[in-house]
């Protein structure tokens, strides 16, 4: 009993190396065949991830598409296959556009996305260029400090920011006070159908620009200095070299920032939920597709119809992203 643990370890000392060498040989030469048990080990390592990926991403996405072909309400009746009926209902509303909540929400979100994506992309680029290529170019401590400062708004959550801006936007709040300093009569912001959506745009631009600034900073760092210097040697001024040399090289990052902004923007929900009263109001001016989907599913108990709306929203996002890619970064589209 006492000798047993000792003997094998002594006896097997040389074989371990021999065995090890053999295992190593197989590991190197094996390629896709792999070492014995490697496949099993790999799938054990992957098990939790594959569960989530399989059930909560892949299955659930397909389920969502399937769901859009059913009439589903919880607690009342058995799901009933109705083919493309949900889609027909939605598309029939196109004829009475103005009274359709879903299509109103689509128009709202398109306005929203166009404005926020344009403004935040430009702002992010300006911020990044300011930090990377201006007087801060060779002062890394100062640059780091400003980067930190500019990044802070993107740390805030949509919930916290909504609460804070709710206060700023109240008719006697900070924004109207600042406007009154320059003698502009402030609007009622969230109570005014013309200003409620712009108010949410401002808040969104404030939180997201800085996050995208980081992408541009990283991309600017990768641009070879020689290219910009060469342009300046050839007589290009600062703006020409920026526009003709830097911007074309940034195309992939511009696409990334625009696409991420678009995908996020189309799904805007929290801010409307927090800041508008009634939800999506006034007069549906801030109703977004996600809010409408939420309403249809959880207030009206029409899960199938809501799923069909989700699919339409997804298709719209997908097509818009592809078009953006064609225009912004054509080199990768082929």
């Amino acid at each position, binding site marked *: 009993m006492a000798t047993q643990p000792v003997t094998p370890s002594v006896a097997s000392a040389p074989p371990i190396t021999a065995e090890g*060498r053999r295992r190593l040989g197989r590991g190197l030469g094996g390629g896709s065949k792999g070492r014995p048990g490697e496949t099993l080990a790999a799938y054990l390592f992957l098990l*939790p991830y594959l569960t989530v990926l399989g059930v909560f991403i892949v299955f659930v996405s397909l389920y969502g598409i399937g769901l859009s072909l059913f009439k589903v309400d919880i607690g009342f009746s058995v799901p009933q296959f109705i083919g493309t009926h949900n889609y027909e209902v939605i598309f029939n509303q196109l004829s009475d556009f103005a009274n359709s909540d879903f299509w109103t929400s689509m128009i709202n979100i398109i306005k929203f996305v166009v404005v926020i994506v344009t403004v935040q992309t430009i702002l992010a680029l300006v911020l990044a260029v300011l930090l990377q290529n201006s007087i801060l170019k060779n002062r890394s401590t100062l640059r780091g400090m400003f980067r930190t400062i500019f990044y802070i708004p993107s*740390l*805030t959550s949509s919930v916290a920011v909504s*609460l804070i801006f709710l206060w700023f936007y109240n008719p006697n709040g900070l924004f109207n006070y600042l406007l009154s300093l320059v003698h502009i009569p402030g609007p009622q912001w969230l109570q005014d159908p013309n200003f409620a959506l712009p108010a949410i745009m401002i808040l969104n631009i404030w939180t997201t620009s800085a996050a995208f600034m980081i992408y541009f900073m*990283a991309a600017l760092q990768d641009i070879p200095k020689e290219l910009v210097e060469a342009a300046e040697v050839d007589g290009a001024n600062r703006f020409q070299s920026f526009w003709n040399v830097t911007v074309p090289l940034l195309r992939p990052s511009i696409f990334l920032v625009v696409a991420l902004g678009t995908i996020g923007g189309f799904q805007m929900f929290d801010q409307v939920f927090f800041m508008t009263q009634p939800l999506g109001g006034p007069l549906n001016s801030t109703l977004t597709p996600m809010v409408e989907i939420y309403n249809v599913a959880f207030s009206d108990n029409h899960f199938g119809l809501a799923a069909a709306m989700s*699919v339409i929203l997804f298709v719209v996002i997908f097509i818009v992203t592809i078009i953006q890619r064609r225009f912004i970064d054509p080199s990768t589209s082929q």
Partner: protein
Amino acid sequence: MAQVQTQTRAQAVARTSEGRKKRPFAWFNIIVYIFLAIFTISALGPLIFSFLSSFKTFHDVLAIPPTLFPQTWTWDNYVKITSDSAFLRWILNAFIYAVGAMILNTLFSAMAGYALSRLQFPGKETIFLLTLAVMMIPLTVTLIPKFLVMNSLHLVNTYFALLIPAMAQPFSVFLMVQFMKGLPKELEESAFIDGASRWRTFYQIILPLVRPALVAVAIVTFQGAWNDFLWPLVVLGTRDMYTLPLGLYFFKSAHYTEYNLLIAGSMFNTIPIIILFFIFQRYFIEGATGSAVKG
């Protein structure tokens, strides 16, 4: 023309060879300073103003003209909030969600990343491509079916409903693969010769080497769950299960115009993340962009 050009060329060469010669202070720099000042104020202003205002009284917070500092400093807002046991419960729930998701996702995505970057097995390519593809599926498609799945599993209104979908996220797996595939192969081979099991190789050799990636994934996951509003809204039903963002929504409805309380409440959501940011700044930025930019 040609002469001018050669001249500028010569000047430029002289400039670069001399090293950085200071340009004369130009109007361009003044504009840059103005921009920096404007952006600094607009980035920090709202948060500093809100933070200071969370110590104001109800009357003070609506004062016209608004003052930056409270006229009388008061802890009342915080006292009132923290004496509400529901509010404390929401903080606890948010903490359970955020820390749980953080631990699980960091571990499971590292495990998946290890398999996908360093092991050879059939199906590897498919799983990796699938990971890339599903990152593009927006929340809109999965929200409702995900709820129905949770509903039929009878997990609605439990911590499981929050944690299970968050416990292994494609973006984190992708980040881990990017980090791990760069490590030299010899590391594992020597461990393997020494007879270490794959789990030990993973745990004792690979994980310590990708610590920056682990921290980045941990932080991004924590932040995502801590701030998450839509999924808890959909899947949680009773007041005692709410996470802080969801609780703040109902808190807002109860104290609609009491901005002093709303602002103080929002600080509970904001300040933990800002503290984390100052401790782990580098990892925040790496986690948010690292993989996307490095490709």
